[in-house]
């Protein structure tokens, strides 16, 4: 289990993390989402031992990550800007990783060679950005980690390779119980793979739930009111409302049954509950944190 409690991290007085807490159950895939500058990468750098928190605890499996070489040998990380030595080939980097990670599997490495189709003798610097990302996955997965910490991992990968990479990671999760923490802006993709989601903003984790809980906590309703009712009744607890013709689309923070029951008092001609996408949840949850999509006309 990955456990972050009340972590504060300041850079020149600016709190990049301001009491952030999250917990990732063992064997789960946890999606960390949030606007730019929310603190996602900062929290990931704490989890990989790069940064030391000013206060709070960062632990994996009950052990502090900071300066814990034994624990870090079970963690593989792919940052958004993965570093490789300037003149190194894939094979050079493989040897380097192999020297550090005791569980590094040559068998896995050889198998993954068939997946990625990259000349391992070629200098990484000369590979495209997407291929460099593939090399990062290749090496990280060969380390046979118990914990995978990924920061914007599939950026730059083509759709086929994205699916391939996610499939490999899901395989590790199901077969070896690998715990994955992934930060991404691609909510559509996270929706398919994550079973837990945490939403960050201003250095705090605003909300963390399982995806099912999250979807159950908010509902999107399409409503057609009786003739003469053009506005949504003010007493309804609506997060967001829009109208196209006579159809009102309402977002409400409650489950579908509760929302339908509240609307029934107005005898609507039509009430239809539609499940929210993760992207919609993200937008409407953060709407309360001054992050609503603004109707700006320039």
């Amino acid at each position: 289990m990955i456990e972050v409690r009340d972590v504060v991290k300041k850079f020149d007085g600016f709190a990049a993390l301001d009491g952030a807490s999250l917990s990732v159950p063992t064997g789960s895939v946890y999606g960390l989402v949030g606007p730019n500058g929310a603190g996602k990468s900062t929290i990931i750098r704490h989890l990989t031992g790069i940064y030391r928190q000013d206060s709070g605890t960062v632990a994996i499996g009950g052990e502090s990550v900071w300066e814990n070489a034994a624990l870090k040998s079970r963690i593989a990380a792919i940052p958004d800007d993965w570093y490789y030595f300037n003149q190194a080939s894939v094979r050079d980097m493989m040897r380097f990783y192999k020297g550090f990670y005791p569980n590094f599997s040559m068998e896995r490495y050889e198998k993954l060679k068939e997946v990625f189709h990259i000349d391992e003798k070629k200098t990484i610097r000369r590979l495209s950005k997407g291929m460099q990302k593939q090399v990062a996955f290749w090496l990280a997965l060969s380390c046979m980690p118990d914990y995978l910490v990924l920061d914007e991992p599939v950026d730059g990968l083509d759709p086929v390779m994205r699916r391939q990479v996610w499939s490999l990671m899901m395989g590790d999760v199901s077969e070896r119980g690998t715990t994955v923490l992934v930060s991404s802006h691609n909510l559509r993709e996270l929706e398919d793979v994550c079973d837990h989601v945490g939403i960050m903003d201003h250095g705090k984790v605003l909300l963390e739930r399982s995806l099912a809980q999250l979807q159950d906590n908010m509902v999107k309703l399409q409503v057609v009111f009786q003739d003469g009712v053009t506005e949504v009744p003010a007493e309804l607890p609506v997060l967001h409302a829009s109208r196209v013709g006579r159809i009102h689309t309402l977002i409400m923070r409650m489950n579908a049954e509760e929302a339908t029951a509240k609307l029934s008092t107005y005898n609507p001609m039509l009430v239809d509950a539609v499940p929210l996408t993760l992207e919609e949840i993200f937008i409407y949850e953060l709407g309360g944190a001054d992050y609503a999509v603004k109707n700006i006309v320039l």
Partner: protein
Amino acid sequence: MQSRTSFFNITLFRKNLTRFWPLWGGASFLGSLFPLAILLQLMRGHRWFAEPLEATQAYYNVVVYGLPIISLIYAILCAMLVWSYLYNSRSVGLMHTLPVTRRGVFVTNFLSGMAMMTIPYAVTGALCVLISIACGGFEPVGLLVTVLSVLGESFFYFATATFVAFMVGNVFALPALYFLLHFLAPLLDWLLSMFAGNFIFGLNRWYSGAVEFLSPTVYLEQQVYADCTYEEVRAFTEMTHTESYVSKLTSVTLENAWLIAVYALVGAVLLALAYALYTRRRSESAGDVVAVGWMKPFFRFGLAALAALLGGIALYELFWSSFQDGRYYDVLPMVVCMLVAGAIGYYAASMLLAKSLKVFRGSWKGLVVVAAGCVALCCVLHFDLLGVSRRVPEAGQVEQVEFYAADNTYTLYPGEDAELLEQVRAVHKAIVEDQSYILGYQSDWRHTEQNNVTETYVRFIYTLNNGRKVERRYSIPLTQERLAQADTYDSLLDTLVNSRTMKAKRLHAGDSRYTVDSGNLWLEMRGDGYDLNSRECAALLDAVARDAASGAWGDYNWFDQNNNSAYAMSLELRFARLEQDHWNYDWISINVRPGMDNTIACLKDLGLVTDKDLVIREDMEKTNDWNTSKTETYEEKMAQETASVGIIGGADGPTTVVVAGVTG
């Protein structure tokens, strides 16, 4: 496989050596050219290592002259590569994500750097040793001392570079700060001496060397040396088939080698501090000029202070020195120059720290501190609030005084020269008391045209009982009127220098610590000179002493400092004195004048001069002028008569150009 120990990682070590092989490989190649050159010279019959001691001497010469400078430069190159990961957020991310502790990374990288430092030395040394063995010149003790010296200096320099590497967050800041710190002490010594000396009356304006030990490269180059002892032996020369005396090296030791060990210990302390900095270092500091938070104010104000001093002096010299009144800085223009330079330094440092040009808003408080510092420093020095210029050490505090006047240096000791020392102090006190008169005199250049005025230079170096030194230098005007007045410094100086005891002191008469060992004679009429051996010098010294006793030599004429009334020759004798295993030398100048019969006779007896050489300098110059004037054209003569241009200046004062009309 992962290393079993947590403080060393073989993979990282190997990676460092394979990644950075061009540096140590290139250095090894360059180093190996040296033994290769020796080998080629040996093949051509050049004698290098015929004796084991000669090989040791050659090793020691490399340790003395080459090692500190090579290690200084090479260490920073190694450090820039080994610690380069600290200065890039991506690379620092990789290194700290790896399952190895910071201690492991630190130790492994340091050992990698040390390996890179020592491999080229090992390659070069091994080849040299092989060649010396082949030529019969192997000496194990010398080799061991050399190896230990190389290891000691390599360790010290790389440890220093490592320490600096953890203070900065930018790869270009690393060499800049490294070299600055290595030479900061002599730089500040020079700057502060010059600055304070140009404010405070009599203070030494030159580099004192008091803190040279803080600049290891300078100090090692000066203090560590190969002490060689030679013996004259008869040897058979094959080429000429004759026997002759040749110098044979009988012993060679590396003197003050213990300093290398001391610096290595300092390196160990710096290394421990570097590790402490690493454990507290924030990875996010990658890219910052200064990586340690509490060092940032030191950097900001340190750079401002350095800029204020260095830039202030430069601006002053550029814009104000020609308007300066007297020999000392004008306080107000200097304050203005320092403020400008200090502000530039302060904002430059702020911009480097902030990595932005927008640093002006809100930084006025710091600028006020810099400005206040500049004003305070100038005021303290200008008004001499610390009383430096007035300080004349008490006789009881003095262990020795070195007094320079009238072209000679006198070393006086409280016990044996108590009376003279008191007279020297009296002269010093009188000069200090007449500070306003002297400064006023110097600021008015018209005095220099007067015939009854001359200027002379005196220096006092007091060595105090606590080992510290008080040094004062003055260029003082002397006038005929004041020479005749009791208690003026003019009269006190004249009485002292021309006293019987001082004349004897000048010749070190009766002082068994001094031995006259060499000298030289320059004959202006011939335009030729001689080096004198110890026998000739002893004979001349005896003759001069007899002339001194008869009153024919020793009276110094302050108004004839060019010695125009002396013969056109320069006689200098060198005295040697052994002090704490070191030879100190003292030169005296003898002006040979008419009436010095003993000296003239001795010079003639030694075959050094003839009657043709005994021409008064003034007469010789007149003759020369007449000869020159005969070749001048009418226009040139007229131009010379219209005006003459003189350049007046002293060793420690500004130069004044005087244009004076000449009346036929």
